[in-house]
């Protein structure tokens, strides 16, 4: 029997009120406080006056901070694009794997989720640092190549110069791609797995090769999955804090690192709040764009 909430108000209230209260108490109220801070002024080490000033926002759009916002957007965007490029073939491969293989591959994708981010990041440092495994491998190859060249009577190669893979912007992007790849692969996989296989077969049957089938049929039909994968990767990447903090150098600050500094070292909560809300508005814009893509592709089918 179909019921509307009007017919069973008590039951509806019993179900709806606890989560609503939870949201109100632990999300809406604190966010409102922070939002209010963003219009306030520091009057002492621990006191903030709500003066309704826009000074914090004016400061936040100064070139210094705009640049960091811009940089965060670029880093998050690059991360998302790289995740898409790496994740799409992976998702395609999982979607076309045999059922038994599929569950193992999905498990492999999910595995990092069950490990602490901090541990994963330090593990990445162990891999990337100058005495890390990447450099070990390259050095081994280098020395072997050098040995081979002496063997055939050529000049040996010089001393191996370890690559600097850490504490710069590429380290941040490598770290962000590594952390966010599952967020991209899973929605892509679910979109590709749902897709009617006969559509791809029809494309092949009509004379298209595999690449054209992917470009002309698979990608357009997976657009909603791609959009949600992009969004779900982009938003956390934009607000990334730990990865740039641990893997980045002095010039790899992202907006979340700046915000953290305002709340902690600078003890300037109003300014930190203003920056936080600007970041949140950017996020909303991204969600709105995803919704637009979704609606356009829904109208098509």
């Amino acid at each position, binding site marked *: 029997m179909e019921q509307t909430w009007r017919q069973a108000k008590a039951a509806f209230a019993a179900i709806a009120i606890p989560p609503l209260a939870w949201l109100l108490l632990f999300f809406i109220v604190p966010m409102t406080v922070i939002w209010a801070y963003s219009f306030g002024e520091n009057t002492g080490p621990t006191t903030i006056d709500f003066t309704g000033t826009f000074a914090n926002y004016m400061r936040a759009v100064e070139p210094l901070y705009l640049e960091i916002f811009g940089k965060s957007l670029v880093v998050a965007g690059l991360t998302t694009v790289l995740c898409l490029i790496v994740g799409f073939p992976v998702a395609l491969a999982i979607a076309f794997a045999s059922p038994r293989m599929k569950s193992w591959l999905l498990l492999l994708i999910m595995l990092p989720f069950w490990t602490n981010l901090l541990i994963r990041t330090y593990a990445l440092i162990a891999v990337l640092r100058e005495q890390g495994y990447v450099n070990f491998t390259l050095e081994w190859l280098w020395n072997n190549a050098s040995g081979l060249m002496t063997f055939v009577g050529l000049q040996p190669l010089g001393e191996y110069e370890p690559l600097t893979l850490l504490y710069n912007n590429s380290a941040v992007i490598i770290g962000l791609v590594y952390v966010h790849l599952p967020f991209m692969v899973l929605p892509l996989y679910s979109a590709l797995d749902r897709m*009617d296989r*006969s*559509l791809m*077969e*029809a*494309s*092949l*049957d*009509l*004379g*298209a*090769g595999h690449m*054209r089938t992917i470009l*002309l*049929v698979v990608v*357009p*039909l997976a657009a909603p999955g791609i959009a949600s994968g992009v969004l779900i990767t982009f938003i956390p990447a934009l607000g990334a804090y730990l990865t740039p903090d641990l893997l980045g150098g002095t010039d790899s600050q992202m907006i979340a690192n700046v915000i953290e500094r305002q709340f902690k070292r600078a003890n300037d909560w109003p300014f930190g709040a203003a920056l936080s809300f600007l970041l949140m508005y950017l996020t909303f814009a991204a969600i709105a764009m995803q919704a637009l893509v979704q609606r356009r*592709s829904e109208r*098509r*089918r």
Partner: protein
Amino acid sequence: MSEAVVSNAPAPKPTPHVKDNAIIRFEGVTKRFDRVMAVDNVTLDIREGEFFALLGPSGCGKTTLLRMLAGFETPTEGRILIDGKDVADLPPNKRPVNMVFQSYAVFPHMKVADNVGYGLKMDRVPGEEIKTRVAEALELVKLGGYGDRMPDQLSGGQRQRVALARALVKRPRVLLLDEPLSALDAKLRDQMRSELTSLQEKVGITFIMVTHDQDEALAIATRCAVMNRGVLAQVATPADLYEFPNSRFVADFVGSVNLFEGVLERDEQNEAQVRCPEISSPVYLDHGVTGARGSTVWVALRPEKIEMHKRKNGETAPKMEDAPAGANVAAGIVRDIVYLGSETNYEIELESGRRIKTFRSNLTRYDQEDFTWDEPVWLAWHACSPAVLLS
């Protein structure tokens, strides 16, 4: 046995567009999935211009055979030749065949015209030519003027026509149809049946259709292959399939049938006799059967070939000599009646207790009143009506 019997077959329907050359040849084709034998050593020629049906219950391998032809599956053993050329190394996009999928597989994100033009675009046909050929193809399937619609604005039947146009516009050597009518409602299915046949005659392309619906195969195809568990059971024209089945499986799968197990008692040039325990008198046949005397055979009797007559209570079956010339007679009692309008189906209990089906056309408006429940009847059938099956 079959050779002697087939000579009795009526002339096949005139199909002047069917040529003698085999456009498709399966040579000992076998397909195994893991340990499952999907297609088992199939050898089959399909002639140019035929409307060929692959008929069988689900899981019999007919779709696998079609998909191997399209290039979506590779045979485990054997060869497939299209126009005499082995296509083993050709991927689906290089084969001169096109397929209409069961789900139609119309691209939902493309306009009808782009769907139909897709294959031509892939072949790098110039834009102007694509336009005219797409328009022609849409005209052919009676969808002229629908080019700008999106697929979600079309009905299921219209979407199927798009799929047809999309495949035909490429002028393939062979068109493959996977259960083309299964998703349509009954009225539309009847209409589409005749449209498919006339379309095939118009374009002159060889059509190969997969279906599990024997009515559909009989109605549309010029020739059918019945498959059972990966093996070709019989390849014949629809009429031969129905009237001269070669096995119990085919007799039972194609149409309705009463099957009786029996022993071949007499087998001569022009007559034969089978003793079936379930029928009180021996079944007399006016043609010879190539089987060893005393061997087990099966008598297949179609329900519509059995006549019903009134019988007085207590009257017993006449002896062979007393029965009308060339006729078989058995006594029975009406146990069930299903009135279907154009005909009535009766379930008759024989003296042995075996129940059999008979169909009777309602030739006048009062025919269905002739027989009622528990009424004693005579059943009679002509000596040429039953098919004798050796397997």
